[in-house]
């Protein structure tokens, strides 16, 4: 694990994300079992794994929505179990499984979230983000009347409203047509580059992960079984694509945290 970076003021700046020996147990089920990793600025890290691998629970603990059984998840130095409100304005989240109010228009939704994040120039920022995400024509339409692709763009606009330094994305292109999905990925690449943001991506789309992520953390039964670049993982397994690697891992039978090709 790399050491925290020195800040311009000379002090030590905490990493955007630092996860140490994170465990979450629900009754007799261990959802996350001793996960540790640290994330740097200007990086995209994909959390991969089959259903029930522990991706959502790990991300939920990063957001502070779930309290770990043991270990800790720190974001910009703040322990998310106890002091999440110190840093929530520096992060944001997008998922097709979480909506914004259906009856409200796109503009109303963005303005409400703009107030929650404390935007200085609310109207200006809403106009800018709408233009950036091709939503200007939709601003006065109810969110519930939009197509899946349009809703994804609204969710992305909400997620980028506060220009988060840490962006958590849960399947950001699920249910999108290939053209719109490609457009969203380009936006995310641009955002990461311009904002030097830390992006955590949970996705089942391996082509998307290969394109966006410079690091893959693979989970199985709540444990990290691989933590390397997509290229390294593909090479180690002697495969052509990340999808083939994922299938090879998923079909090998599991049972051991030790991952061998």
């Amino acid at each position, binding site marked *: 694990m790399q050491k925290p970076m020195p800040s311009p003021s000379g002090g030590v700046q905490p990493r955007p994300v630092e996860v140490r020996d994170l465990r*979450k147990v629900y009754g007799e089920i261990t959802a996350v079992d001793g996960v540790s990793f640290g994330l740097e600025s200007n990086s995209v890290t994909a959390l991969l794994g089959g259903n029930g691998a522990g991706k959502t629970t790990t991300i939920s603990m990063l957001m502070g*929505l779930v309290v770990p059984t043991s270990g800790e998840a720190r974001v910009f130095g703040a322990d998310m179990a106890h002091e999440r409100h110190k840093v929530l304005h520096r992060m944001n989240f997008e998922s097709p499984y979480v909506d914004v*109010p259906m009856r409200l228009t796109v503009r109303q939704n963005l*303005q409400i979230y703009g*107030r*929650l994040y404390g935007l200085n120039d609310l109207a200006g920022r809403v106009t800018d983000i709408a233009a950036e995400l091709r939503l200007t024509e939709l601003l006065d339409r109810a969110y519930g009347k939009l197509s899946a692709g349009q809703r994804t763009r609204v969710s992305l606009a909400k997620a980028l409203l506060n220009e988060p330094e840490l962006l958590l994305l849960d399947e950001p292109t699920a249910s999108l047509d290939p053209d719109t999905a490609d457009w969203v990925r380009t936006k995310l690449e641009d955002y990461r580059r311009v904002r030097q943001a830390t992006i955590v991506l949970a996705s089942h789309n391996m082509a998307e992960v290969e394109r966006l992520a410079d690091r893959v953390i693979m989970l199985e039964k709540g444990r990290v079984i691989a933590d390397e670049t997509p290229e390294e993982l593909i090479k180690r397994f002697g495969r052509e694509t990340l999808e083939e690697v994922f299938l090879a891992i998923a079909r090998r039978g599991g049972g051991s945290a030790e991952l061998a090709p």
Partner: protein
Amino acid sequence: MTTSMQPLLRPQTTVAASAGRVWGMVLRYWYVIRSSWPRTAELIYWPLVQMLMWGFLQTYLAQSTGFASRAAGLFIGGVLLWDILVRSQLGFSVAFLEEIWSRNLGHLMMSPLRPIELVIALMIVSLIKLMVAMVPVALMAYAFFGFNVLTLGVAFAVFFANLVIMSWSLGLVSTGVVLRWGLGAESFAWLVVFVFLPLCCVYYPVTTLPHWLQWVALSLPPTYVFEGLRGIVLRGTFDGTLMVKAFALNVLYFSLGFAAFRYFLQSARVHGSLVQMGE
């Protein structure tokens, strides 16, 4: 990206920032009320039906019994005050349920909105919904039965405050229960207030209850409000000590309600309920 010299975000820990977040949530609920006339009509519907039913019953009884003719306004006043308790609690709880129905809770919990700010917003929204529901009904009570709630004067303001504070306490508990157990507990939020209808002696004096149940009734703030109403209507006197007792109990219940809300929220974070919100 932002190019102006002004920072994108305001400082987050000031009172102004907190007020801005509360205002954002109030707007969110106001937009919902404004966007749907059936919802607005629904707010008025039940209080109106209840007021008409009790009003006509009182009119009928007044023609046949001496007591009812002396007690003009007892039933209509009772139903109007009872509806303040019910509508305010439902206004609080249903506004929160909107977040779960619209699958918005995850975004809210991930935003800088603090639990206390959400609670304050829900309290304000419950007052707004109460006004939307009760002002037309109070006007109709005057038009149909000549009952003017404002003739209760200062007493009405004190009754109103005590009932609304109690409704918030119930709203906090029911919202906490839904946070912890999801929509499976939704019916609790809808029904919890109705156990107070017999216990708070809305339409009869506390002495009507069995002795042991009187103690239960006297531990509930609304009981003192309805006793106070009967004092004004039947004897023409306003007993301030009843309202002091009600207020003291309300302070206790509201503190317990907020503690319960915080406990259930923390419990939801431990059990993972916030990310699995549903039935």
